[in-house]
């Protein structure tokens, strides 16, 4: 009896401390969640159902969802959301690279004199430039020279802390302020980016015209050879993974499909009709899969069918964008001299259907390199046992081998965490950028799911569609997280 009373007491105390939070949780998470689910199945429209006009709501079943899925715009916005997430591997690589560089910087009293000399030289040089060119023309170089000299001395004195601070700055200030700033930077007439690009592109156009045949043949040829080398490397890797029973048939098929995808885009860009190119992708992927999977395994099948899927996804995330870039080089290279004849114009960034997404991705990369991810990598790097590197040194490992066999596998849990969070945030992202920089345009090319939900929920007021779209987003986040944990954890534990 006494025991039960003390248990009740403990529960009451425990819940008592929880109470304020629980009330908030109920009011602002659970109730809205339930309401949202309910709204998604109704025809709630702000114009017809509000305090002044109360037409009765009616349940429409799955009509909102079918409306979404039968509208090409919705698929377009979903595609945009995923396209913008292609920046994630670059951001992860950038954060890792920055963290690796930062750990190499050490406090070196002896280096201070050298740094001071170098800083003085930079200052003198920029001062001379200022004198020769005048404030209006060259003042900005003087300012950058000043900053560079200060950073150098600070970097040597603090053992790199100042670099870390500066790398983190864009992430820390990211928000409306930086979006507005980048909108101005991207302005094609008045922004500094195109101001800097114009002379560079003029030079480039002139060079192309001087050596037109070299470019017409050289660019596609180089891109093509590089692409083939990359593809060959991946095929060889897939074969080896299969032989070592590190990859199952699902992983091989996935790897083959990811490899064939850029080829399909190339065919399409070279003028092949979309269905035909798609068929090409399917044929190539299937043939490659069958070719690999039919190879006999000397030790019999010893791995699950879905083994190695996460590795293929990881490699595909890096490989596909690279191959797409190279494919673009092949497709556009031959036409380069003709295009250069009229002079090469810098892109109209946010105002151009094709360039708006890359422009946003570049900005996001700027903000993401020095973000929390870099901090996590720094912590991860300092947790790697030094003995591993000492052993590798004794075996005479090269720095590449040290990275791929020690650093990268040791950091796998961190990378996995960053990737999962990146996907979750990426799916929900893009609202503020779209609202401030592009209003979702041009022609919907920067409208993400979240911006679509905002438009439907707060501008057109069709709450039914907006809620249905929000639940589609929720389902996507849920499924991708499940997949990540299903396949990713295994990889992280290897």
């Amino acid at each position, binding site marked *: 009896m006494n025991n039960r009373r003390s248990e009740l007491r403990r529960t009451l105390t425990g819940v008592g401390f929880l109470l304020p939070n629980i009330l908030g949780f109920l009011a602002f998470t659970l109730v809205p969640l339930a309401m949202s689910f309910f709204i998604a199945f109704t025809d709630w429209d702000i114009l017809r159902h509000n305090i002044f006009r109360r037409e009765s709501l009616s349940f429409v079943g799955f009509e909102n969802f079918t409306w979404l899925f039968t509208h090409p715009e919705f698929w377009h916005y979903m595609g945009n959301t995923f396209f913008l997430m292609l920046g994630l591997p670059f951001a992860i690589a950038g954060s890792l690279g920055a963290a690796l560089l930062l750990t190499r*910087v050490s406090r070196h009293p002896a280096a201070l004199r050298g740094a001071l000399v170098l800083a003085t030289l930079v200052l003198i040089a920029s001062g001379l430039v200022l004198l020769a060119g005048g404030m209006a023309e060259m003042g900005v170089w003087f300012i950058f020279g000043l900053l560079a000299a200060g950073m150098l001395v600070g970097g040597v004195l603090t053992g790199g802390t100042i670099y870390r601070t500066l790398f983190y700055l864009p992430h820390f200030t990211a928000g409306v302020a930086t979006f507005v700033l980048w909108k101005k930077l991207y302005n094609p007439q008045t922004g500094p980016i195109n101001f800097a690009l114009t002379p560079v592109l003029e030079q480039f156009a002139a060079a192309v015209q001087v050596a037109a045949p070299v470019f017409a043949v050289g660019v596609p040829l180089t891109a093509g050879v590089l692409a083939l080398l990359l593809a060959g490397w991946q095929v060889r890797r897939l074969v080896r993974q299969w032989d070592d029973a590190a990859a199952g048939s699902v992983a091989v098929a996935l790897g083959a499909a990811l490899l064939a995808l850029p080829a399909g885009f190339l065919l399409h860009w070279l003028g092949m009709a979309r269905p035909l190119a798609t068929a090409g992708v399917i044929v190539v992927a299937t043939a490659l899969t069958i070719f690999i999977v039919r190879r006999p395994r000397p030790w019999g099948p010893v791995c699950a069918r879905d083994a190695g899927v996460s590795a293929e996804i990881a490699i595909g995330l890096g490989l596909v964008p690279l191959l797409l870039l190279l494919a673009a080089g092949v497709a556009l290279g031959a036409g380069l001299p003709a295009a250069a004849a009229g002079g090469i114009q810098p892109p109209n960034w946010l105002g151009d259907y094709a360039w708006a997404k890359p422009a946003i991705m570049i900005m996001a990369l700027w903000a993401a390199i020095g973000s929390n991810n870099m901090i996590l990598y720094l912590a991860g790097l300092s947790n790697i046992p030094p003995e591993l590197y000492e052993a590798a040194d004794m075996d005479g490992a090269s720095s590449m081998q040290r990275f791929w066999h020690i650093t990268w596998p040791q950091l796998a849990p961190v990378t996995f965490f960053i990737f999962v969070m990146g996907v979750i945030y990426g799916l929900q992202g893009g609202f503020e950028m779209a609202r401030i920089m592009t209003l979702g345009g041009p022609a919907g090319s920067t409208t993400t799911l979240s911006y679509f939900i905002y438009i439907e929920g707060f501008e057109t007021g069709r709450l039914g569609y907006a809620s249905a779209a929000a639940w589609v987003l929720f389902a996507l986040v849920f499924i991708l997280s499940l997949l990540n944990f299903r396949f990713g954890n295994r990889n992280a534990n290897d």
Partner: protein
Amino acid sequence: MTDPATQAPRSGPGLHTVMVVLSLLMVGPFVWMVLTSFKSFTEAADPAWMPGAFRWENYPEVFRVIPFLRFAANSLVIAGWVTLLQVLTSAMAAYSFARLEWPGRDRIFFLYLGTMMLPGLVMLIPTFQLMVRFGLVDTYLGLILPAAFSAFGTFLLRQFMLGIPKALDEAAEIDGAGKWQIFWNVILPLSRPGLITLAIFTFMGNYHSFFWPLVMMKTVDKFPLPVGLMLFDSERGQATHLLMAGVSMSVVPLIIIFIFMQRQLIRGIQIGAVKG
């Protein structure tokens, strides 16, 4: 920072040059922002970086054209209240999850963790309808309340409080302290680094917040800074030079907070990711 394990110390001039160039790339946009804030209206349409003459009067001009101080005060009040409430409610919940024993505790904690995965967007539309229903649209309360409770904060502080030795609670209990006294006098002071970290995160996040104030606030005088600054980019035309002056002024407090709080923040990021 130095990690002899990763590489033998090799901070040669080459490495420092790379770091300086990267730092300049990160800082470059801010340099442009500050320089443009000193331009005249016509110069702001000119892509050259340098203003002809540094127009310091742009900054007082910002205060004349928009109620900048009012916006800043709104932002500080809203972010300040949210931070206070969120840190308090999160600390209480974290104390319950980390240091009190009661049946069903861990199951409820995992439910909490699960809600961190819910996309906030799912809740936004119904929450707004609730706000309309309760007449909280265009009020500070409507901005503060939904942000005052956080599963993330609870999680972060729980991780932190788990690291405090259990013997301290027991000693206080023997001295006759109640649970609330232990929480207030023992655990809270010991959790200070965690509380400060959460406070910075929360404050920053709400100082930046744009979406919710944008849909909730109708009266210009109640706008927080991020929404207020957009006035320069819309109805009042494109006053790029003033916009950049305003943006510079809104970013400066962040940079100052950051420089002084770096170490706390970095620790918090690492605690938060331990079990993600």
